[in-house]
């Protein structure tokens, strides 16, 4: 149990867990105690969610910016680009139709 690599990597997972936990507790507290409202709350929840997703990618899925043979990061970014075109396009068109109705 005294393997230095093991405890270093375990601490890495625990650090990710701690960050993710904080980024979860804050938005739940904001909604539960109604500490914010309206657009400001929506933007805060969105920013915290994106931050938590980055934490999960970094600490649990081990995606980082290092030069690597396995081009996970490019794959993820390209997928997100395609998804953004399709999802934002959907919301744009449907929102436009709703206002014209």
């Amino acid at each position, binding site marked *: 149990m005294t*393997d230095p*690599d*093991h405890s270093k*990597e*375990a601490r890495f*997972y*625990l650090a*990710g*867990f701690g960050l*993710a*936990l904080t980024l*979860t507790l804050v*938005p*739940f507290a904001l*909604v*539960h105690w*109604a500490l*914010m*409202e309206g657009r400001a*709350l*929506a933007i805060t*929840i*969105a920013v*915290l*969610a994106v931050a*938590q*997703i980055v934490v*999960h*990618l970094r600490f*649990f*899925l*081990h*995606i*980082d910016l*290092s030069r*690597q*043979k*396995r*081009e*996970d990061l490019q*794959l*993820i970014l390209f*997928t*997100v680009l*395609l*998804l953004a075109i*399709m*999802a934002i396009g*959907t*919301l744009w068109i*449907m*929102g436009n139709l*709703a206002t014209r109705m």
Partner: protein
Amino acid sequence: MSTSNLHPGLNLGDHHGEAHEGAETIVFGFWIFLMSDLVIFGLVFASYLTVANPMGMAGGPGPEDAFDLASIFAQTMILLTSSLTFGFATLAMRHERGRAAIARWLGVSLLLGLVFLSLELRDFAHMIEAGAVPQHSGYWSAFWGLVPLHGLHVAVGCLWLMVMLAQMATLGLIPVVKTRLLRLGLFWHFLDLIWVAIFSIVYLGGLMP
């Protein structure tokens, strides 16, 4: 093949030999599957968002009539903890702590996954009681298309976990079992990532003051 410049992230380590080298392409291939799954989830989220408004609810029950924030919070904590325990299972495998140590962490993750599913099913039963059924409105159709899709993934993950526990017991820690466990780990962490989007958009977004 040189192993010194392999991906630094979720890997087994040089001392795993064949399984470590095989992990390179196998894990990347699994990432491609995960990203296609992400596109499916993303578009289901987009269709959910187009009906998450009073028009989409068609005068029927809204989120505040059907969601229970305390239960969602419990599910979030359980899924997050299961991600950590699965991480410890991966570490036990990387550092050759033996089958018992890996099985113990996998068992804890499986248990947490099953508790998550039972809480989610209880929530779904309450929603049905509140009249929040898919045929009621576009909003509830989209909800039932999105959240149970994630639940189905978690159920498949639990099944996969049981299969891997059985394979570890019968086949031992052979290279193919190790790389399957790596892929299951990616799947498990990925589902937790999708859940972040679900609780932020669907539940917190729906119950926002």
